[in-house]
């Protein structure tokens, strides 16, 4: 069975979806990702969907779920590289993905994640130094 790899990059998790998601795969990804966030104590999740050309309401909901779950586990979610057609579909389906951060590409997504958790980490470092 196919599996979507979850890569660890420092305090972040990187997920690149290279194939069109079907329901089962999306559900597995949701479960795996939440496990991974819990295990690694990641502070941010970056999901790259630039290769995804088809979405349905279920997929939209899964992305929303992942964001909400990560939020509870204290990790921010950024979705990057959404195709115009996908964005229009999600809007027409009435899924504006509130609570999910978005960025144009992986690079900008990483910057966004860093800026989201940046100040806190600094204060942590300060605490350690003291």
């Amino acid at each position: 069975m196919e599996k979507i790899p979850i890569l660890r990059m420092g305090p972040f998790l990187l997920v690149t979806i290279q194939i069109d998601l079907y329901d089962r795969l999306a559900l597995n990804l949701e479960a795996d990702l939440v496990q991974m966030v819990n295990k690694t104590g990641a502070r941010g999740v970056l999901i790259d969907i630039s290769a995804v050309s088809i979405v349905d309401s279920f997929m939209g909901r899964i992305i929303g779920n992942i964001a909400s779950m990560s939020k509870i586990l204290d990790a921010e979610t950024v979705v990057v590289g959404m195709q115009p057609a996908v964005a229009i579909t999600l809007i027409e389906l009435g899924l504006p993905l509130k609570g999910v951060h978005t960025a144009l590409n992986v690079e900008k997504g990483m910057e966004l994640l860093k800026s989201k958790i940046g100040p806190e980490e600094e204060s942590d470092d300060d605490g350690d130094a003291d």
Partner: protein
Amino acid sequence: MKSNLLKSLQKKKKQILELWIQNQLTDPNLREDLMSNTELRVQSDELVDVFLKNLNDTNLTEPDSPDFEPVFEILAGISISRARQGFSPRETGIFVFSLKEALLEILRQELPDDPLQLYNESMKISRLIDSFGINTFETFIKGREEVILRQTDEIAEISTPVIRVWDGILALPIIGTLDSSRTQVVMENLLQEIVETASGIAILDISGVPAVDSLVAQHLIKTVSATRLMGAECIISGIRPEIAQTVVHLGIDLSGIVTKATLASALKYAFSLQQMEVKRIRQERKYID
């Protein structure tokens, strides 16, 4: 007797054509600027020819008879080409109806001393040509509508340019009413441009939108949400006081969207988002140095 009459009509084709063309040429509303006389003659000749060829005793009283298909085809071709050339409906109408005069004139010459039959035949011819006339009008209007549709498409195509105002800042001035199909075009163009230029900020300028109702606002909100999903920030600018009033009166919630009164202030805000600022080069320096 009747078929004799028809035969003689068919025989007198040349005469009918001459009479008809003469009628058209003497008309003060003749548009020589749009169509040359030779072209007019060719059109008229073709129509009279096909009309008389397909005319017989039975279909004389049935304008919808399939025998007249070729006539209708020619009429359709003529009226569509005339619509494109810019003839007025009246001129196209006169073109067809003047044929009636020519036919009736010939009929009168054929039946000099039988008023009753002349009347009967005239009525039939008259009805037939009227039906041709109506048909011509229908196709004429269809031709005009095609022209209008094409122009609408062209306007929609022209009026949605996405402008790159700065590195990473796109502007999209919207001019004219926003309806569903136009929003779709606007949204697609904007999102495509965002991907191509990797721009983080898009400014939608609606100073050229005459009125905003709840539907237009809905479309705007959709566009902004789609841009946000792509990972770009969308600013709406060019909101006139009247539009602000309507939006509030309609109870539309734009609180989740950054709105600015002018494109200039939107640009300023975009610069601040990108941690840039525009400064005047200081003039006093010279005096200090």
